[in-house]
């Protein structure tokens, strides 16, 4: 149990260090989110935007700048987590494989990445919700944060998938930006006259947009839509997991994987000790051996 905990905490610690040293992502987190939601609030007219919200069945008429602030915040958090996870997956694929082939259990590496994503998504959702609450008061701020959190998780997992499949960094960035913009813009009734088109139900953040809008302007909860968003996350995470599993595979048959020290085999170890060069300045350590 202690070994499992050590493997998990070590991998999580270094994963978080890597994210924290991604300065561009940190700049995006600190400045992009408040700038984006602030500019939306200041530039979009406050004219009422009447529409029927599918998640609650209510007819709502929120102020345009408040409604667009919600979709803007969704856009911002999905881009940040998508970018963070894409960058770490894209640049760290071979390093992960080296670790896995050195004996690091892939389960712990994956759990560490998941823990980093959950933590980053939670912080981003709380930060974006707080930034919006400066301008106005959503009816259900916790539900709003939960909707942002689930959307951020989903795009983080999509970032892992793109980081595993694409060959060039610019391709991943473009794919993430365009997916997030199209996904969210099509669901905003101010931007798109077809926001209630049934096709929008298939978009990756449909669940979060519905839940977040209900959180902003209604007192009715929308747990089914949060669950739908988590289903999107689960599917994207499964794809990411398969890609990670493929990229970190070891072609050697299991009994051959002696990359890390295992149980001692006296037949091999004894002559090794006996025949060691006495004057060697790099005297092999008496640590665990095969």
């Amino acid at each position: 149990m202690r070994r499992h905990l050590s493997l998990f905490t070590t991998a999580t610690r270094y994963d978080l260090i890597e994210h924290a040293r991604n300065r561009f992502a940190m700049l995006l987190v600190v400045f992009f989110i408040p700038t984006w939601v602030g500019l939306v609030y200041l530039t979009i007219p406050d004219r009422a935007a009447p529409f029927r919200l599918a998640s609650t069945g209510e007819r709502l008429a929120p102020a345009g700048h408040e409604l667009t602030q919600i979709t803007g915040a969704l856009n911002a958090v999905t881009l940040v987590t998508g970018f963070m996870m894409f960058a770490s997956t894209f640049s760290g694929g071979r390093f992960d494989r080296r670790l896995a082939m050195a004996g690091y259990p892939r389960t712990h590496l994956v759990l560490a990445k998941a823990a980093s994503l959950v933590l980053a998504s939670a912080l981003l959702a709380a930060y974006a919700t707080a930034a919006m609450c400066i301008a106005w008061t959503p009816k259900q701020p916790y539900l709003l944060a939960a909707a942002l959190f689930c959307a951020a998780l989903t795009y983080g997992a999509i970032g892992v998938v793109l980081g595993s499949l694409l060959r060039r960094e610019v391709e991943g960035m473009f794919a993430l930006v365009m997916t997030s913009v199209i996904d969210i813009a099509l669901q905003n009734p101010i931007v798109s006259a077809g926001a209630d088109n049934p096709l929008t139900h298939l978009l990756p953040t449909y669940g979060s947009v519905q839940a977040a809008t209900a959180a902003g302007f209604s007192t009715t909860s929308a747990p089914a839509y949060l669950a739908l968003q988590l289903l999107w996350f689960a599917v994207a995470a499964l794809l990411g997991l398969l890609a990670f599993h493929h990229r970190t595979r070891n072609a050697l048959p299991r009994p051959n994987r002696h990359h890390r020290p295992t149980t001692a085999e006296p037949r091999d170890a004894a002559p090794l000790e006996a025949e060691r060069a006495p004057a060697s300045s790099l005297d092999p350590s008496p640590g665990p051996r095969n």
Partner: protein
Amino acid sequence: MHHTYRRRVVLRGVDFDLGSHVLAGIVGENGAGKTTLLKILAGELRADCGAVRHRGRFGYCPQEVVLNDALTVRQHLEFFQTAFALDDLRHAERVMEALQFSEYADVRAGVLSGGTRQKLNLTLALMHDPQVLLLDEPYQGFDWDTYQRFWELAAQLRDAGRSVLVVSHLAYDTERRDELWRLEAGTLRLETAAAA
């Protein structure tokens, strides 16, 4: 062992045995299939046909430096210490001393020079004191002194009973190897072998 990339046959019947107390080299021109062979030996690639059998744990130093630029040298060592389930980093520290880059322990890999990155790349392959070493162009970017120290290190490991395989494109300093193999037209040919 046989391997083909689409229609291009890279390895056509390679049969190779690496004994203990041996410092062997494989040389060949660019594109001869040396890295492919080493990747198959290390488990990074599956051969179309054939099998690899290791006795004892092995260390693999890939041709391309595989590091995490965000982590320091020490953090790399600690990460791999957990992977290899090592009690301490004494052996890694000895390798660092032998390659003379201990003073960079707290420097991030992303800002290290090419030669120092390669030293760390090599250290990660050696830090668990493997019995079989598979090294793909391990001295790329080394200055002359470090190059000399690398061969001293390889000889010490060989003398301590390890099996060391060094792959390179140049058959330079051939006398440093006990066996020299040439990979040509997809097959291995023994060029020199040490006297028994």
